[in-house]
């Protein structure tokens, strides 16, 4: 049951329920429902595991962890993504040819989410927990309340970037393309597609 191709209308309603700003932008589903990976793993271009600095998740040995009730901080992710070649670049969310970027979201408690910029700058890819991976045009589209009880992602607090060469040599690019190809194949076979504002099914 790890993967589930849900009714696009149901997915649309659920996403807009959680992220109301998506109702006003053009976004689309990029993967099935899948609880085998989450946002941080997807920012790492992995779909086979969950990554988080805490027990029960994959995290490189030697890097600091934060087991509950401790909360994961920005520097945990800066160090982890540093190993993948990423460096902080403030809040510069623009698309730069030759660079791949990831964004860190945080609320009042700590880090809540990560999104990865589309390789060709068509938006940002967010895997929402166990839910689908979506492509949304702006980082602000899924921002929300920073209260620790709000069950929202809070705000973008830092953006990291690395060169395409680093993405290529770490095989990340290949993994991302493979995942995208599998989903596209399923779309073609089953006619499963959804884009906010442009219903394809």
């Amino acid at each position: 049951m790890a993967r589930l191709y849900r009714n696009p209308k149901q997915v649309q309603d659920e996403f807009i329920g959680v992220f109301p700003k998506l109702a006003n932008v053009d976004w689309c589903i990029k993967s099935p429902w899948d609880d085998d990976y989450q946002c941080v793993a997807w920012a790492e271009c992995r779909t086979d595991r969950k990554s988080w600095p805490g027990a029960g998740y994959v995290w490189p040995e030697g890097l600091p962890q934060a087991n509950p009730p401790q909360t994961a901080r920005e520097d945990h992710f800066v160090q982890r993504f540093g190993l993948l070649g990423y460096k902080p670049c403030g809040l510069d969310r623009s698309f730069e040819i030759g660079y791949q970027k990831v964004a860190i979201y945080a609320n009042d408690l700590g880090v809540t989410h990560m999104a990865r910029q589309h390789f060709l700058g068509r938006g940002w890819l967010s895997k929402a927990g166990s839910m689908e991976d979506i492509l949304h045009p702006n980082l602000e589209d899924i921002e929300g309340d920073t209260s620790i009880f709000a069950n929202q992602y809070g705000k973008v607090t830092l953006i990291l970037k690395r060169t395409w060469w680093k993405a290529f040599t770490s095989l990340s690019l290949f993994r991302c393309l493979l995942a995208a190809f599998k989903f596209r194949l399923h779309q073609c076979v089953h006619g499963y597609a959804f884009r906010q504002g442009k219903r394809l099914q």
Partner: protein
Amino acid sequence: MAVQNLTPEQVFQVDSGVLAILSGVSVPMETVENGTVAVRSSALSSPIGAEAAFICESLPESIQAIPLLGIRDRSALRSPSVLVSPTLVSPLPERTLEQRFREQADKWARETKHLSSPTQMMMHPSYQAILGMALENKREILRLLILDLQQHRNEWFWALSYLTQENPIKATDAGKMDRMIAAWVNWGRENHII
């Protein structure tokens, strides 16, 4: 100070869950929704349940309201920290532990499915309510958690480790849902929980 709106439903259903989220996680919190519920953390630094200071001060019949909120030990009452309006004081229908678990587990799964942060997921009142239910019957809650993990793949790993003080998941299996679930299901069978 963080603000959250608690609904009457939450107040009645969570029993020790409200205590758990306030005293277990020690998060400063103040809640006001149309004057119905106000929770202050100042008196809630004690461990879950045992000495939590709850009192219904705005009602003449406040003492009758206390059992409805899951507070059994009246000697634990120390200082005002919860104000309950008359609209909240109504008898709860009798429900089994499993029914209450199912209700909270479904709610938790529904409201946290988009989250990735384990801390954020654990902070959810329903998660804390389920931890609180373990005070009533820990073995039954363990059974329900493992079955729910197996059937619905809801992530109860931290709750299971917290309640059992064990972790049957191998380091190499961390982050891999299928293997983590299998590890806890096997643990449950070996310990005759399920």
